[in-house]
């Protein structure tokens, strides 16, 4: 095998030295100080730290602070437990995506998707011939049927963040983002998308998640964040069908952010990749008169 000559750090030529004299001096002070300590003291400090870590772990376990990866599969939000019915019939249980639906002996009709949840309404105290309470739909069911506003309402004010923490798959996170976005709360779609990118960067949905995040940021007037999201989507290997749009939006984001150098560089890449692209005229227009005016989507 022929050995290549040392490259003398070609990358290092465009990289600043991250080390400062101040940090070196600070490290040396610590080195001197720690070397001056007796070994017994160092061991005592280590045991103390180990004890603190153990106590923290026990406390975290006791209070359920462990992260979602180690938690059991979360239960879906359940409505308040109704008082037991007076009659002898069975009450229909809640529908669940993970649990088998309970027996529906006393239910007249299948669970309607449009039933308005009434968790506060108590069950009738008088004896009824049949149980009339129906299972409440979960936010997942509503989202699956395209009822994003209803799904958002079922999640409640803090439910979305809670579900983001509990989500066990990229699909769950994407669904949560859709619920927030399509119910008119795009700012709350950031968290599930960012979480998806953090936990599942190699997932097939990751480029789309980054692209969606970029669009949201652009809509919310955060072009710098949008540009970073679009760059990330491209870096994650967005499909060719998405790439042209992403590159055009990247130019748009940089123009709106006022970073004309970055916009021009992105424009060069766009023209190189798509010399006859559908959005070439728009890109040319942005770059020729780069005024950060609102741009049509």
């Amino acid at each position, binding site marked *: 095998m022929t050995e290549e000559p*040392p*490259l003398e*750090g*070609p*990358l*290092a030529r465009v990289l600043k030295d991250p080390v400062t004299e101040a940090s*070196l001096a600070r490290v040396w002070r610590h080195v001197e100080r720690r070397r001056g300590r007796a070994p017994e003291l160092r061991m005592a400090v280590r045991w103390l730290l180990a004890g603190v870590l153990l106590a923290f772990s026990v406390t975290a376990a006791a209070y359920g602070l462990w992260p*979602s*990866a180690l938690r059991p599969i979360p239960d879906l939000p359940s409505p308040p437990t109704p008082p037991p019915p007076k009659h002898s019939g069975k009450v229909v249980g809640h529908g669940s995506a993970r649990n088998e639906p309970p027996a529906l002996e006393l239910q007249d009709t299948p669970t309607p998707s449009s039933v308005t949840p009434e968790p506060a309404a108590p069950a009738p105290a008088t004896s009824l011939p049949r149980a009339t309470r129906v299972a409440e739909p979960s936010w997942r069911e509503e989202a699956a049927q395209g009822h994003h506003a209803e799904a958002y309402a079922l999640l409640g004010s803090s439910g979305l963040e809670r579900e983001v923490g509990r989500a066990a798959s990229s699909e769950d996170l994407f669904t949560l983002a859709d619920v927030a976005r399509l119910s008119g709360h795009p700012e709350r779609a950031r968290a599930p998308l960012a979480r998806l990118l953090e936990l599942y960067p190699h997932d097939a949905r990751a480029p789309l998640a980054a692209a969606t995040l970029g669009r949201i940021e652009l809509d919310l007037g955060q072009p710098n964040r949008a540009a970073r999201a679009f760059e990330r989507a491209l870096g994650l290997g967005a499909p060719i069908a998405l790439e042209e749009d992403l590159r055009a939006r990247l130019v748009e984001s940089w123009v709106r952010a006022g970073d004309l150098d970055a916009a021009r560089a992105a424009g060069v890449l766009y023209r190189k990749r798509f010399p006859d692209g559908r959005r070439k005229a728009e890109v040319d227009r942005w770059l020729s008169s780069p005024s950060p005016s609102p741009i049509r989507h």
Partner: protein
Amino acid sequence: MRPTALGSLLIPAVAGHQDAASTPPRIDAAGPDRDLVRRARGGDRWAEEALYRRHARAVARTVSRLLARSVEAEDVVQDAFIFALTHLEDLRDPDLFGRWVLQVAVRLVHRRFRQRSFLRLLGLDRGADDVTLAAQADPRAGPEIHARIAELDRALTRLPARCRVAWVLRYVEGSGIDEVAAASSCSRATAKRLIARADRELRACVALDEREDSDD
């Protein structure tokens, strides 16, 4: 096969910056380290500090670029020098103090990577990468260079730790194969394999850029 590594893809584009940006100093294992080590073994604090002053910057720079977190890098440099100065008797060739302390530091970097993986598994890894390659990029370099370095950053984070360390040492720090092998505590052949694997995977991630280069 292209004669140069992925890192050198940036060279033509940054030719204009080469005069302004100086090549960072490398660890020089030769020289009078032997005398300093001998005096440090005898308890000479001045010699210890001289050894630190001579090698700390290179070690800190390498560790920072490997860990991408300044606070963790400082801790690792601190631990590496404490270990090295405390175990000077174990150093067989005093002329190679610099290489040895870098080897200790790289071992500690690997330990940090393992700790990070564990903390990430528990959801407790709250640290943010503040010394990424993109963050260190010379502001005079164009946005295209910044974008490429950012892409390289992302691709590096997906590599296995050993491959990442070997590649960064070789193509970011400009170390020779022998230095990479010594720092990674492996044979030359293993070091070459690690670098080649990293290079292959990075090329796959930045294939678009290469294709564009070849078009020019």
